[in-house]
């Protein structure tokens, strides 16, 4: 494969956005989790909720900081590597992404300060309100991103000028786009489930180690029970998203299904190795009729195969095919864990079920993997279009870039990300390992609300170094 500037730009974008999505996926859920803990604390008065909230706030702060930093590069890449995309779709994508950054800065940053430094300075109900606002801010950010991405998947409410610029004619058609209302909940619940499993896995870890068992049990129980409700809902929304893809993006649907030829009735492929060269599957195991049932809720419907589309309009098959199956697989494993765990949690058996706790501990990456592979399915499946059916990815790139230039910036970005995220992840690990400590003096000295990484006492091992001036 030749490394064209286009391919390198795509890899670079995929790299930065994959790196970035990990942190929002975590913080959207954690913000809601903190709000929930604060509400529990306010209404029941139990100290354990306060301890949990203080503990997770520190993790939230680091993840939030890394999310902000990695997001800035995203915004600039639209102009640097995809100048034609930003020139032509700017009148629509510009305001949408503008709203995203404006909302993020206005809501999140302002109330984040209260979260970090306001614990003892504002009344408890106001603190809960601040949690709620941060949670709302992160969800609104996600909403604008999903509106923007859904418009790229299913462009509506625009007209084209002679030089190919997209002019918005109907903002409500753009925002209340049919795709948004299944994809946005799908993303939000993905974030909640991801965080729920991180919380549950951390709890299981403490229970296995025998440290902070009370807190650990509370985390595991709350995380698993929440997931027990959310994962089935998520599967339902996933199905709705699938229906949308089936109706509006048939080529993507065929790629996800790994279906090369039209079939009537269609079977559902469970396992296969797509062989793009010869346009067929190797080692295929499939269930007859199920493909028609999933696609059209009938036993006899005809389902389109990828060969029905002109070669230049076909997405790659292997990535959506595998990514989709990994996503669904992770979802099913999480469903099993959540249900078994919730069932165990109603008695004292959870503490003794070491095998289950080990499985739960190991499950922390599942939500991230499912989120990432879900995005791979959606974005790679959209190819060769950047704006589905309207603008090809190849036409969207900056026309004059050379491979060397893109490779240079890619190497630079990768090196910087590796450095700071290596440090950041190490830092989160240290915090998790240290576990919840009896409410640290969080507001001994407040400095700046917008500096999540500077939260006092957030650095086990070297904390206090700055204060003593060593």
């Amino acid at each position, binding site marked *: 494969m030749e490394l064209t500037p286009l391919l390198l730009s795509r890899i670079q974008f995929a790299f930065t956005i994959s790196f970035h999505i990990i942190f929002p996926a975590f913080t959207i859920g954690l913000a809601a989790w903190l709000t929930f803990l604060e509400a529990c604390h306010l209404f029941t008065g139990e100290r354990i909720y306060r301890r949990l909230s203080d503990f997770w706030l520190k993790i939230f702060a680091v993840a939030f900081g890394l999310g902000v930093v990695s997001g800035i590069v995203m915004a600039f890449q639209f102009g640097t590597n995809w100048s034609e995309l930003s020139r032509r779709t700017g009148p629509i994508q510009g305001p949408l992404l503008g709203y995203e950054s404006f909302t993020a*800065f206005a809501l999140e940053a302002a109330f984040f300060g209260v979260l970090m430094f306001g614990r003892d300075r504002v009344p408890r109900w106001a603190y809960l309100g601040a949690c709620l606002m941060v949670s709302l801010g992160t969800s609104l950010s996600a909403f604008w991103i999903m509106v923007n991405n859904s418009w790229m998947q299913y462009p509506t409410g625009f007209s084209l000028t002679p030089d190919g610029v997209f002019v918005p004619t109907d903002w409500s058609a753009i925002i209340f786009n049919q795709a948004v209302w299944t994809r946005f909940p799908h993303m939000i619940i993905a974030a909640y489930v991801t965080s729920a499993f991180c919380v549950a896995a951390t709890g299981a870890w403490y229970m296995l180690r025998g440290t902070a068992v009370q807190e650990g049990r509370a985390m595991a129980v709350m995380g698993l029970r929440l997931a027990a409700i959310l994962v089935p809902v998520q599967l339902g929304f996933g199905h709705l998203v699938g229906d949308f893809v089936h109706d509006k993006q048939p080529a993507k649907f065929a790629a996800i299904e790994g279906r090369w030829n039209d079939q009537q009735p269609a079977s559902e492929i469970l396992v296969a190795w797509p062989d793009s060269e010869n346009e067929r599957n190797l080692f295929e195991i499939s269930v007859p009729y199920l493909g028609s049932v999933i696609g059209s809720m009938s036993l006899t419907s005809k389902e389109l195969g990828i060969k029905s589309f002109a070669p230049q309009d076909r997405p790659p098959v292997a990535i959506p095919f595998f990514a989709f199956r990994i996503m669904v697989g992770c979802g099913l494993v999480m469903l099993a864990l959540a249900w078994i765990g919730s069932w165990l949690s109603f008695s004292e058996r959870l503490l003794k079920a070491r095998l289950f706790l080990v499985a739960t501990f190991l499950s922390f990456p599942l939500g991230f993997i499912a989120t990432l592979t879900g995005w791979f399915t959606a974005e790679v499946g959209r190819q060769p279009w950047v704006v589905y059916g309207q603008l090809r990815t190849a036409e969207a790139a900056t026309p*004059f870039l050379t491979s060397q230039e893109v490779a240079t910036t890619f190497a630079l970005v990768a090196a910087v990300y590796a450095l700071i995220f290596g440090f950041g992840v190490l830092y989160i690990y240290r915090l998790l390992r240290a576990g919840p400590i009896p409410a640290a003096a969080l507001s001994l000295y407040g400095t700046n609300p917008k500096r999540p990484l500077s939260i006092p006492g957030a650095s086990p091992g070297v904390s206090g170094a700055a204060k003593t001036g060593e």
Partner: protein
Amino acid sequence: MVEFWAFVLGISILLYILLDGFDLGVGMLFPFAPGEAERRRMLGSISPVWDGNETWLVVSAATLFGAFPAVFSIVLSAFYLPLFLMLAGLILRGVAFEFRYKATTSRPLWDAGFVVGSYVAAFVQGTAVGAIVQGLPIENGLYAGHALSWASPFSLFCGLGLCIGYALMGSCWIAGKSTGPLRDFSFRVLPALMAALLVFLVVVFIWSVEIRLQVLHRWIDRPALLVCPLLGLVAFAGLVLSVRRRNERFLFLCGATIFIAAFTTLAGSFLPYMLPFSMTIWQAASPPSSLSFLFWGAGLFVLPVTLAYTLIVYFVFRGKMTEEGEY
């Protein structure tokens, strides 16, 4: 509506230059500080505000993309390599504030990131201004150059100039915020920086005449613009006086006024062009439906809130630092 967004863009860029300008300047002076205690105080003087300052870069970029996508796509792609360098610099610089104090053995690494990041960001911004003043190659509303078209001796010289300017503002800021050895340090470097800035301005003017920059015609067409350089001159005189009297009261105000004068001179001579002299603000603007959509939320609510937020932060952290420093 187009005028409104052009005004918002101008204000946010100016705020970015003024605010991030001084904290980048502090980063550039950082390695020359007398000792670790002074360095700590230098960081302390900007730590409550630096990231709020950088917010204005994001506001500028978001406004540019939302309201003037044509310019967004041209400028960002034209400055492809330097822009990534700047982003890398700003990221390294940002994390250095925190990691420096958490690190046990890697402090020199984060310090280096902080200093280099500051220089790179300032230099790239100055170079971009120089290249835009000189005029980017644009045909039919599309960028017609290649990835290194921005790099001319003139633009690189402008990059150097902005480094000097930012360092000047940085030392004015430190002088106003500190006492003792750190204050002495800033008064020691100020005369040299002022002389360097003066030399830069003279050279850049002669150079502009020499390469017949189109922008010079504007100054002949619009004599009213002369008010701006005159204002700058007054501010410079104020700077000289303050330094001679070792009075830091109006120091930062004078430094900032020089920048305001320079910015309004440039903006005044470009208008109505956004990219001189190939694209006007009307050619660059999004269609009215986009601009009004942006106005009813972002323009009416978010911008005033962000402005108020900035003012509050500066109000809370006003005055000299305490002996302990902010950290």
